[in-house]
């Protein structure tokens, strides 16, 4: 039998070695692009001279940029709230089904989340198509007025949020369902013996027990929702009147399509401090709650 070298016989060394591929991935796909974006954001348009924070100060004077900031926050907040509510309701509904029948429902509910968003959004685009919307075709069959899904500011915003909720709600569902299943049944039995009703059980047992999962899921969802690109890109390209642009699509328009990469990098980095602060607060609270439970 071959004997392992002394270094590999030490558990910490093996652990570090096994983590090397992960570190390499994080370095290559997260750290390097991030620092490169930071570097790009400090260059002039031609990428030939260092300009410090000039790109950021320039952005602060642009009306469209502030509109994008407001829209991104509106989009993320509304979408995450609805995803969380729908996910929670659906998780509860599935959790009440006998275990035997749950699998098919879980599978069906996950479909929107597992389809590549660019493809599923294309399907939505056909439903919302400006002139030949399939939904409008149905509405007019029932003598109802057609809805300008993508050409009116309100409806265009509604449409991109709707699609984002459709894609993202299953993620909340599966996280909440896992959390619900981890709650000991004895807690509910004891509460019932004390005469607690369904709402009391929900507010005094379920919610406290899944609070950490809610916080982490919400944090994760805010990050990916704020960074959303494909839905807006496929459905509206930021229109009408730039009123559906998010950070990512506006950064793309300015950086890639208009050839001002440093300004585009500045737009995309703008959300980093906001998300960092949010992540710090949420994760600190999660850690404190976990510590108090321990």
């Amino acid at each position: 039998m071959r004997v392992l070298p002394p270094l590999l016989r030490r558990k910490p060394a093996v652990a570090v070695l096994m983590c090397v591929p992960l570190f390499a991935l994080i370095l290559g796909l997260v750290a390097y692009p991030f620092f490169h974006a930071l570097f790009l954001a400090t260059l002039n348009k031609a990428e030939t001279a260092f300009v410090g924070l000039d790109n950021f100060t320039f952005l602060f004077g642009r009306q469209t940029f502030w509109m994008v900031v407001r829209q991104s926050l509106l989009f993320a907040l509304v979408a995450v709230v609805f995803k969380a509510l729908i996910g929670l309701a659906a998780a509860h509904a599935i959790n009440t089904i006998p275990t035997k029948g749950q699998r098919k429902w879980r599978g069906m509910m996950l479909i929107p989340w597992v389809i590549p968003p660019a493809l599923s959004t294309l399907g939505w685009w056909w439903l919302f198509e400006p002139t030949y919307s399939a939904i409008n075709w149905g509405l007019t069959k029932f003598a109802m007025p057609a809805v300008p899904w993508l050409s009116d500011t309100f409806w265009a915003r509604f449409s991109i949020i709707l699609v984002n909720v459709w894609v993202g709600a299953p993620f909340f569902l599966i996280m909440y369902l896992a959390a619900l299943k981890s709650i000991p049944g004895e807690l509910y039995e004891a509460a019932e013996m004390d005469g607690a009703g369904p709402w009391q059980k929900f507010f005094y047992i379920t919610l406290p027990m899944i609070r950490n999962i809610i916080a982490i899921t919400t944090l994760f969802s805010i990050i990916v929702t704020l960074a959303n690109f494909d839905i807006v890109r496929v459905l509206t390209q930021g229109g009408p009147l730039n009123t559906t642009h998010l950070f990512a699509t506006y950064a793309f328009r300015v950086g890639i399509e208009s050839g001002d990469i440093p300004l585009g990098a500045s737009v995309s980095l703008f959300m980093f401090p906001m998300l960092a602060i949010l992540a710090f607060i949420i994760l600190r609270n999660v850690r404190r709650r976990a510590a108090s439970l321990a």
Partner: protein
Amino acid sequence: MALTAGRTRRNVLKAIGASAAGALAAPYVKTAGSAGRLRLGVIDHWVPGTNEVLQRILARWGEANNVEVTIDFITTIGNKLLLTAQAESRAGSGHDIYALEFHMVPMFKHRLIAVDDVVEDIVAAHGPIAGLSRQAAFLDGAWRGGPAPAMNASAATVARRDLFLEHAGIDLTELFPASDTRDSAKVDRWDWEAFGNAAVALHAADRPVGAAISPVTDSSAWLAQLFASYGAAMVNEQGEIDADSDAVREALEYLTRLAKVMPDSVYAWDDASNNRWIISGTGSAIFNPPSAWAVAKRDSPDVARHLWHCDVPRGPAGRFRAFNSIFWGIWDFSENQSAARDLLRYVAEPEVVVAMLEASQGYDLPLIASHYDRTTVWAEAGPPAGGLYNYALRGDERTVTDGYPAPPEIAARISMQRIVPNLVARVTQGGETFDDAIGWAENELEGVLRG
């Protein structure tokens, strides 16, 4: 057709006729080094069947020159052509020859090798490249691409002759006949007001005219020709912001009226929406190359036989047609630049240009004036017979591009940021005052001009 403002095709031909005639007979001469492998990224053609013809032409050239030619047809929908170019230029890897739309040449000039020798050979053999196209590709004293054999196109008025006659009382076939017999006095009355009056009548008949006012290329194109015809510009030739002008207000005032009789969906149209719309039979006019007609001929022949291509309406400052010149550039990381240069020379040969013109059913307008007289495709295309005759510029139209008359680099950014469509939509859809909308545009233009 890419001609300098103020010069028609006929005038240019007169001027260059003698020199071009001799040069046209010159055979294509292959230079040394045409061997190895060449990868091309070219535009996926809108007209069905055209890609295959280009593929055959290039394959034949490859066989004759011992070059393995591979072609990727890249769609312009969703700006994929631009995105691929950005990726390749930053990575320093990809195709050898890449098709560049008008505004892409200034964007990528730092990564495109100078091809002065190629263009000089082409000009010596076939005559000059027209003014507007030259402006796009002759940058900082060097040519950054050679004329492409495919996808050069203009945004003509594509109208239903039956509906215009029935509901607006305008006989487009009489106004723009399929021969050189047009009555200039009648054509002179074909202005934006006349078009607007027709649009009102057609809207009343539930057959409205339509053109995109959304963040896409089609919007920029037709609004460029309308703005130019009012003398309206975002940035002038000196590179100064010029949006706050009477001309811009006049154009916006007209568009406010016109937009009311167009479908609301134009604010969300993409580059294929106007095609689908006229092919469906719902619409009565769009601004487009003949791709809509070509697809209608295949899918909706009853509509196709009524589609008539004609001049763009005139404005107070003249008559302008948006023209998208396509150039094939060679990346500086290409490993086979010698063969690439040879191929650029070859695709400017008359037989290639004519073959592509016929394959595209007249869609691909040549960038070299002398090539226009080598085909009768526009006269023969149909049905309807003569429907494409006036797609090739025949009258007093001058060519223009979005961002005009700003310098190429600035015009590219004005176009790509869709400033004009957004300005118009702010007024016509958003209900903003002219002052507010122009103020917004000026704020955006400061970003365009920043160093």
